[in-house]
């Protein structure tokens, strides 16, 4: 248990630093940036307390906000996807989730892709709507959401494949 807490803290700090020091400076084609800090929310253990989970998601969003001068944009999006995660887990993994024995490294790639995509698209849509804050620019919001989501999903899948322990 103690080991898991240290592991989570380490993941939290590393993801925030990687996000703000490296990934926020990519600006592929001028505006496309991946937001991989949501991996923390996506991969948070299912069994742990939900209240703590929502609060930690808020904290990671707020830390990114602090670095990017974006008010509460990332905090709002992170807290939102943290709260709606259980129904999406149920939708994408079905009965395995019901038994509460889910291990992300051992799930089917197709289902994992669906799960990642739904959370990422919702998260990015909230970020960009709040950042632009103008519904007349809906095309801009959707465009940013689409391209950044593709980038984020690809990176997230790559990272989970690279850093997952081989199932024995």
């Amino acid at each position, binding site marked *: 248990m103690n080991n898991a807490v240290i592991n989570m803290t380490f993941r939290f700090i590393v993801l925030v630093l990687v996000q703000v*020091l490296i990934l926020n400076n990519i600006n592929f084609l001028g505006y496309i940036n991946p937001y991989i800090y949501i991996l923390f929310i996506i991969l948070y253990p299912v069994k742990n307390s939900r209240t703590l989970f929502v609060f930690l998601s808020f904290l990671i969003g707020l830390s990114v906000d602090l670095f990017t001068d974006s008010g*509460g944009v990332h905090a*709002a999006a992170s807290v939102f996807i943290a*709260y709606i995660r259980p129904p999406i887990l149920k939708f994408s993994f079905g009965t395995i989730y019901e038994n509460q024995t889910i291990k992300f490294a051992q799930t089917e790639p197709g289902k994992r892709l669906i799960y990642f995509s739904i959370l990422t698209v919702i998260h990015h849509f909230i970020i960009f709507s709040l950042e*632009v804050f103008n519904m007349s620019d809906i095309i801009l919001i959707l465009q940013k959401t689409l391209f950044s989501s593709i980038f984020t999903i690809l990176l997230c899948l790559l990272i989970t494949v690279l850093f997952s322990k081989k199932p024995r």
Partner: protein
Amino acid sequence: MQQIINFVIRNKTFLLFLLLFVLSLALTIQSHSYHKSKFISSTNFLTGGIYNKANSIKAYFNLKKENEILVEENSRLKSLLYNYKILDENLTLIDSSFHENFKFKTATVIKNSYSHTKNYLTIDKGSNEGIKQDLGVITSKGIVGIIDNTTKNYSRVISILNTKSRINAQLKNSNHIGSLIWNTKSPEYVQLIDISKFAPVKVGDTIITGGQSSIFPKGIPIGTIATFAIDVNGDMYTLNIKLFNDMTNIGHVFIITNSDTDEIKSLEVPLDE
């Protein structure tokens, strides 16, 4: 009472979610109004410190480019110096430095962004060095933005690539003034609106700061006109301006302090009432 407590305990996740979500929405809304986004900013001790460390590494990779910019500016200043006989107001770029009331301080940019709709820069000088809110920030090539938040050692600059920014600007060869805004499309172009349709507008003309606010002295270069169009009402020009500055690559900046600001403000305040 028992039921209320039970309700809170049963729905504690939802209530916490609601509280945090509303809190972050409030922070977001606050960040959209000028001069109010104080709490969440990258100028605090922790974020400023981390950006400073990261920048000290990154600065090595930009040394060559920085040197080129310095050499370029040196040669421009030299040519001004040796040709001083034909020096007139139109030739100097930062001519207002000759007036005593504008003073320049240098600073290093430790964080820059240009891909959002509200972009900010963080610089490594703060209130300890006399940096205050509402000072102008420029580079040797053109304007960068306005200081909006300072801590002891760091300050945050509202970039001209920010939908909140409105800067007074004018055509170089006539005195028609307008406001400089950004339509979020490209970090290379900004827009100048509210230019009277009687103004002589040509593609390639230079745009400079207007000197109507106490923030920037008159005559700091901004960019050249790339395209222009009459707006919907038919009596104002909207100009698309290509910036002299490469906003995606800014290393060192100058901060302008105007010692007359207080005097100008004290004159202007009674007029508003």
